[in-house]
């Protein structure tokens, strides 16, 4: 079937099979390979994108379910405090999980008040390199840019 999906502000009109996953649509049909595919069963979170502003695991959404809707992938995430904090805190090693983490956390940033909430926001994203400490520190710094990070010894 023919669908049109708005991704990062641009319209992508493609012919897809009804069973095509949004994750495969984004990568294979639209060529946007910043969205990574890990488990393809909703566990690892690497494929997280935003659908109409809300984080979703794109391997659990059919492409046809996104027809006529607005998708934002990591390519559409403007460089800002979150990525800067990931850089400064060395919050990635191989980087495979990073796009998913950025897309999952970015809409929640101003609501994450403490470490417990940050860790709860991260439960859907697996990282096999860092042990999460640097990721939590980076998100803490990005969520509270005005002084809280020093206060917490991050």
């Amino acid at each position, binding site marked *: 079937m023919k669908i049109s999906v708005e991704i990062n502000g641009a319209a992508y009109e493609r012919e897809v099979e009804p069973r095509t996953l949004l994750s495969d649509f984004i990568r294979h049909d639209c060529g946007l390979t910043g969205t990574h595919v890990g488990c393809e069963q*909703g566990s690892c979170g690497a494929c997280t994108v935003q659908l109409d502003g809300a984080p979703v695991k794109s391997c659990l959404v059919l492409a046809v379910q996104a027809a006529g809707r607005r998708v934002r992938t990591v390519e559409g995430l403007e460089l800002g405090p979150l990525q800067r904090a990931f850089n400064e805190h060395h919050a990635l090693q191989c980087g495979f999980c990073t796009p998913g983490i950025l897309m999952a956390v970015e809409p929640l940033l101003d609501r994450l008040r403490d470490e417990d909430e940050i860790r709860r926001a991260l*439960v*859907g994203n697996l990282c096999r390199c860092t042990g999460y400490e640097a990721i939590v520190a980076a998100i803490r710094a990005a969520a509270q840019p005005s002084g809280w990070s020093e206060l917490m010894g991050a």
Partner: protein
Amino acid sequence: MLARQGELTGLDRWPLLREAALHVGHPATRTRGTVCGSVAAGSPRAELPAALRVLGASYRVRSPRGERVLDAFPPLEPDELLVEIEVPPHPERWRFFEYAPTLGDWPHVGVAVAGDRIEEFGVALGEPWQRAMIEAALA
């Protein structure tokens, strides 16, 4: 009217549902998963069905043959669809607890309490004698 699991996590009126929903999957799955879907899936380890049971919810089910409202949620007929869940006012006394190896995983065991109703879920405490033991301990 709420549809997605994620909408429950912002609820003040039903704190038990809010707490239960925070244990369902991940933030990025709760934006897609539906409350009726959690119930209709019928998993004995699921949080929301247990929370809804102790809250005394009723379930509106629709099929080509018409509609019926159930006080409890038995398995659906193949042509039936769960379309609405109605939840009565929340009792003052409530508790929710579960043990899962990782937050967001299926729980090994959990318990939901509202008013004088208690419901265990998960696999470890399914035996009638264990239920009696828990109820005695919580009385």
